[in-house]
């Protein structure tokens, strides 16, 4: 066997030797290497994550378990988690993305919750390169193939394109589940003497060392070298596992439950045993291959496996339910009182570690932080206004996403009211669950703290536009390597900005993950800062429709000159003196109230593509008159602005607005000072179909 301890830093090796008073065994080294990785232990970011607000009246279980539990109503609690599967999705986009879905679904399942919805914010290099189109195509097929098969609808997503992602695309997935209040499970073992039963797929050599793989940057040879690190998903087994675990949970005999994800059985079993201790027999694990050694068995990241705690008298009952679903199971260990993590192979001890050292002992990493100031002054855009408008509408972040969402079964489980508005709308127990996700990395790069504040604000604004109020936030903190001082600063600023806006919105951040080292040696790129979030909201089920002809159009909020990182900046390279400022949150309540007094579809918030994108989306047939600079009016991406179609002006009371036009005619006519443009249906449709046509190779 290789000397795996060489993959630990000399400092870590020293700390381990000092604590144990001996050289670790090969399995012990492998456990440290994986469980002390950033992916599992948050050693670079733990102190920062502590600054986020994580509590609130609706939070039943905050960060720390597989997923968080949040109150939705008297009869329904939500389980929610968010995870990245970035590195595997570059090496093998289909399977990497598919297993990303599988992993977060099992996180929610391990809380005893039925998974009911998925969201997938995705970040890729520009689509003019074949490789990036290939990656997007296969990631979407992987997410769809897995989500469709297990019958969990993907109802929302986000797509961002920037060449900083070309060697390192990001695949983030949010999963939401439901569970009866007081019936949720946790991953902490309850009592010494109880058995630990492994259920699901057989263990093979796939995905070895995935946790440490995920915490490395991608080297040029990564595709060839790392392929064995990518796991292959089996959604059919996952579906059986969902039904089996829920049936087991229903019996009340599952005392704790944990998904096997990063660092495989070693990660799950050591963290599960927490304050007590555990001993396991690696040779009792049901295996797919012969001759696997203890490191391979314990660190394998074979998918679709769960570990559950049951009392000794219930082992057979649980086993029978597994067999009903044709799932294999093995009784592999038990909870002990000594605070030790002990693994046997054929009766011999191959790992014997103090649990606190393994699970909580990773020394925190401190990185040097240096601020950066990337401002590039705005140089006026020379492009013809109409050409610019059509370029904005056909930009893949603004254009229609039909090509993506028609590949996802978004209707299964009969909750989806609409995926057409600013947030996805699901009915849940007579009320409405609203979901939004994503972030704006270009803005965040320019000013990480206000940029991240704005990203949280924008997602909350999406909820307000469908008449919902936020319940909680989950995140994936995707960044480059914190070993670069400017990145270390960027991470800190982003997390602080997220916390600031979450506090202003009184919305707790209940979970998520951290994905660092998103860099590519192949292209010499580091990703833009991508603190991607998912937000869950609640509201009443409202009527939703398109605004009627004759309605007037109001612009809420004040437009500034915010071009840096905007869609027109990506098209023209115009730059921008200052990134968008952070708006006052009080407007969200007023928008929420307005939507509740009218209907969903009467308001949209303005984000990528500015006012023009909003008009083309909400009021494609209208006459609009604006004052001042046309480029600023139409394309600036100032936050805190909304487009409202109204028929009764008294409903707008309290909002800071100006009336800019009327829904009328059969095209979009915009006059601004002495400049005017007309965009007819064909032009708009053609522009909006660009993403589909690009991916169908028609453009």
């Amino acid at each position, binding site marked *: 066997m290789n000397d795996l301890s060489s993959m630990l830093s000399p400092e870590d090796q020293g700390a381990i030797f000092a604590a144990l008073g001996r050289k670790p065994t090969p399995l012990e080294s492998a456990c440290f290497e994986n469980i002390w990785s950033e992916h599992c232990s948050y050693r670079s970011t733990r102190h920062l994550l502590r600054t986020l607000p994580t509590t609130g009246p609706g939070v039943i279980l905050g960060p720390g378990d597989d997923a968080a539990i949040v109150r939705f109503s008297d009869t329904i609690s939500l389980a929610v988690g968010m995870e990245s599967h970035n590195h595997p999705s570059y090496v093998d986009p289909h399977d990497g993305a598919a297993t990303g879905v599988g992993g977060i679904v099992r996180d929610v399942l391990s809380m005893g919750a039925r998974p009911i919805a998925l969201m997938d914010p995705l970040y890729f290099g520009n689509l003019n390169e074949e490789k990036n189109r290939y990656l997007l195509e296969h990631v979407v*097929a992987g997410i*769809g*193939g897995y989500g*469709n*098969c*297990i*019958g969990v609808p993907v109802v929302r997503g986000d797509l961002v394109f920037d060449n900083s992602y070309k060697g390192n695309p990001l695949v983030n997935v949010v999963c939401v589940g439901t569970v009866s209040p007081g019936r949720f499970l946790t991953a902490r073992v309850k009592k010494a003497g109880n058995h630990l039963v492994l259920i699901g797929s057989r263990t093979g050599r796939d995905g070895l060392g995935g946790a440490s793989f995920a915490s490395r940057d991608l080297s040029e040879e990564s595709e060839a070298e790392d392929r064995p690190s990518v796991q292959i998903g*089996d*959604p*059919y*087994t996952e*579906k*059986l596992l969902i039904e089996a675990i829920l049936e087991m949970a229903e019996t009340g005999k599952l005392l704790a439950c944990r998904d096997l994800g990063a660092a495989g059985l070693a990660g799950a079993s050591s963290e599960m045993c927490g304050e007590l201790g555990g001993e396991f027999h690696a040779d009792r694990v049901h295996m797919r291959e012969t001759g696997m050694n203890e490191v391979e068995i314990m660190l394998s990241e074979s998918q679709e496996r769960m570990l559950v705690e049951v009392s000794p008298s219930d082992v057979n009952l649980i086993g029978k339910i597994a067999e*009903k*679903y*044709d799932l294999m199971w093995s009784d592999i260990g038990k909870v002990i009182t000594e605070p030790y993590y002990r693994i046997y192979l054929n009766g011999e001890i191959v790992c014997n570690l103090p649990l606190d050292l393994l699970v909580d002992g990773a020394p925190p990493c401190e990185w040097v932080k240096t601020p950066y100031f990337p401002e590039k002054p705005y140089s006026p855009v020379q492009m013809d206004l109409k050409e610019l408008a059509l370029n904005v509408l056909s930009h893949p972040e603004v254009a229609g996403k039909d090509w993506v*969402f*028609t*590949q*996802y*079964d*978004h*209707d*299964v*489980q*009969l909750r*989806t*009211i*609409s995926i057409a508005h600013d947030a996805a709308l699901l*009915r849940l127990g007579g009320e409405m669950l609203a979901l939004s996700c994503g972030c704006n990395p270009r803005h965040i790069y320019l000013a990480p703290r206000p940029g991240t504040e704005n990203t949280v604000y924008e997602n909350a604004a999406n909820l307000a536009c469908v008449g919902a109020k936020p319940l909680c936030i989950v995140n994936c903190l995707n960044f480059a390597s914190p070993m670069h001082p400017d990145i270390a600063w960027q991470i800190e600023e982003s997390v602080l900005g997220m916390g600031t806006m979450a506090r202003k919105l009184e919305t707790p951040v209940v979970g998520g993950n951290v994905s660092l080292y998103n860099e590519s040696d192949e292209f010499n790129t580091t990703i833009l800062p991508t603190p991607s979030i998912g937000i869950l909201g609640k509201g009443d*089920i409202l009527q939703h429709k398109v605004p009627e002809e004759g309605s007037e159009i109001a612009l809420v909020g004040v437009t500034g000159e915010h071009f840096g990182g905007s869609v027109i900046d990506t098209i023209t390279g115009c730059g921008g003196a200052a990134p968008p400022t952070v708006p006052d949150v009080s407007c969200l309540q007023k928008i929420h109230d307005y939507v509740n007094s009218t209907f969903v579809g009467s308001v949209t918030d303005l984000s990528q593509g500015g006012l023009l994108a909003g008009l083309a989306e909400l009021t494609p047939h209208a006459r609009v008159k604006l004052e001042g600079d046309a480029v600023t009016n139409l394309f600036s991406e100032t936050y805190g602005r909304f487009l409202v179609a109204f028929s009764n002006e008294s409903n707008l009371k309290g909002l800071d607005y100006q009336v800019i036009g009327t829904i009328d005619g059969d095209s979009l006519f915009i006059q601004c000072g002495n400049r005017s443009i007309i965009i007819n249906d064909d032009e708009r449709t053609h522009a909006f179909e660009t993403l589909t046509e690009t991916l169908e190779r028609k453009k």
Partner: protein
Amino acid sequence: MRFAVIQFGGSNCDRDTHYVLSDLLNIETDLIWYKERLNRDYDAIILPGGFSYGDYLRAGAIAARTPIMNDIIDHAKKGKLVLGICNGAQICAESGLVPGTFTTNISNLFICKRVSLKVKNNKSPFTKNFNAGEVISLPIAHKEGRFLVDEVKGSGFSEKENVVFTFCDENGDNGNSSNPNGSLHGITGVLSDSGNVLAMMPHPERASELLLGSNEGIKIFTSMRDHIENSKK
């Protein structure tokens, strides 16, 4: 009156279909795990959508060879109703309950969207409550839904007798642009020769409440209910 919805490993519209029948229509409906077999008589059996056996081998191929299918074929031989939806339709075709086969969409992609359908036959037990030629909107969600059948003489397939639904545009016109998956003549709902088995790719259970976008699909279930009630009189 009693319906059964069969659950195979990988079925994922079983609970949705059960909800529409029992909660919206108050029809007594059992969810039956395929290993349990059919232990009593039912008036109608529904094979729901999903990915039985993960669609491994071919969609519906493995489920079609499970022992419970013998019970369902016996049930159909008595002239009782069987409705196969999406993966259930693929199972019906794989087990020979209906003519033809469902193969991979011409785009090679999974397609989930609302489509218009033309009711070509409103005399069947599944479509009595529709008007002849009526255009309805139902969602599809499949990757292997392209219906193909051998049209040679003597194959037993007749476009007039066996076809219940075809894809069309909003005005009811059939044509390639309204055919999302490349099915022969846009066929997406096919009857057995004896008329008591319907295999359809669109999901009527997803079009059973206005809140979720359409309630035009529920008429398939009410047609079945009314047909059974009338035949019991």
